[in-house]
């Protein structure tokens, strides 16, 4: 899909190549935002965190050393920055509220690998399957509301969801999860 591997990009960035830096950005910005958003649930905070991540990469480009898979490194760095962001919020917001959020998030981020893989799989679902799944999961619509909105029967909705689950399961298996 891409001509240059992530590893080659990182190597070029270490050598001051701004174009490779831009390529890495294009490649990962959306996906990292997607992941960070699931931790912070705030769009503007999310973008701040991911932009900070990329600014750090350029600033420290000469010192970057990545011994693992580049994607894994970026997600781990994103998680780290996102958690820092939540911690720093403790000073500004209601203390207990932020702490609740933090402990809750800390438990959940353990599943980072699973989540990143799952999101990649959802990205590739057909539009219709995705629509039904997301209307239910994110918008919190009830089956009946979805059926009215999309003008399909409740039975069709169930079938669509089942199809989505099967595809996601297979996709995750392919990714070795």
């Amino acid at each position: 899909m891409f001509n240059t591997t992530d590893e080659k990009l990182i190597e070029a960035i270490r050598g001051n190549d701004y174009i490779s830096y831009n390529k890495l950005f294009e490649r990962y910005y959306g996906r990292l935002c997607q992941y960070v958003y699931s931790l912070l649930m705030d769009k503007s905070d999310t973008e701040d965190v991911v932009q900070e991540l990329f600014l750090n990469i350029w600033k420290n480009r000469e010192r970057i050393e990545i011994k693992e898979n580049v994607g894994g490194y970026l997600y781990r760095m994103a998680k780290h920055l996102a958690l820092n962001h939540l911690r720093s919020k403790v000073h500004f917001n209601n203390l207990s509220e932020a702490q609740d959020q933090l402990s809750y998030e800390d438990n959940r981020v353990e599943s980072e690998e699973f989540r990143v893989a799952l999101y990649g799989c959802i990205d590739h679902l057909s539009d219709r399957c995705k629509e039904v799944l997301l209307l239910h999961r994110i918008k919190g619509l009830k089956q009946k509301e979805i059926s009215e909105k999309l003008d399909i029967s409740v039975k069709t909705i169930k079938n669509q969801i089942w199809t989505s689950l099967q595809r996601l399961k297979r996709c995750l298996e392919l990714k070795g999860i």
Partner: protein
Amino acid sequence: MEEQKQMKDYIIDYLLDGEDEKHLDPVLAEWLAEDESHRKEFDLYKKIWEESRHYTEPSAFDSDLAWEEVDRINRRRVYFRRYWKNILYVASGTAASLLVILALSFMGVFEKNSDTQVRMSAANGSRSEIVLPDGSMVKLNSGSEVIYAYDSKKKIREVDFQGEGFFDVSKSKAPFIIKTAGGLNVKVWGTSFNLQAYADDPIVQASLVEGCIELESGEEKLIMKPGEIAVFDKETNKIKQMKGVLSHSYGWLDNKLYMEDMPLSLVCRYLERWYDVKITVQPGLGENIRYNGVIQEETVTDVMDALSRLSNICYHVKGKHISITSK
């Protein structure tokens, strides 16, 4: 098959139930107890279901807009260090030109109708601005010198010029003539233009913003119209028009150097004047590496950083001496 279909419905129903009203149907519970693999499969569905709750499409985030922001901050970081330096520079520059203006108007009172000569220069690493006795204004780029004289008998304004300057010449019946080192004369009527005529450059370049100027060297002549750029080749003595963006030629007024397919050697000549440094380039490199883009003036090492980012070069600084080699 029939059984699988039923199981599917049980599973979906379980997932679709609201969080508070979840209950395990006995049929489903029995199926789960039947085999470890059933339990695993069911757990995976539950996990997918739970985790998909916070999914967003990556396209919900505007990558182009974000890049603009990141790029802007990266650039600002590069320039930040020289920012204070610039403010000080501007402040002292303003004070200096005020002094010059005061001094000249003072002189003017006593020397009316007699030959006045005014000399002003900007050394490498600095710039200056001067108001001539006739009210014309000249901004001098680094490494430039202007000598102005009014010949009261011939009633002409004569200027010896070397370097690069932006001229804003006041309207007057007395012609304003600039003589450059390469033998090119520029006749000026009330106008503004940029003139680049460094003694050690092979060409003289004029860019006319408004009004009218005439370039002349022996038989060669060219009357320029606003918006035009012309180049005089000292070697062949020819004057010809050139395509280009007018404002780029006086970008130095805003501390910018526009490079359009500009060889490294030429970039280095600019930098030597701007920063008063000496740059040596590894043989063969100077003409082969070419740049497109704009450099906003910074400390010289920041400029070198930018250049080595754009091309395959590295540099070493030793006092006022910089050497450039290929990576």
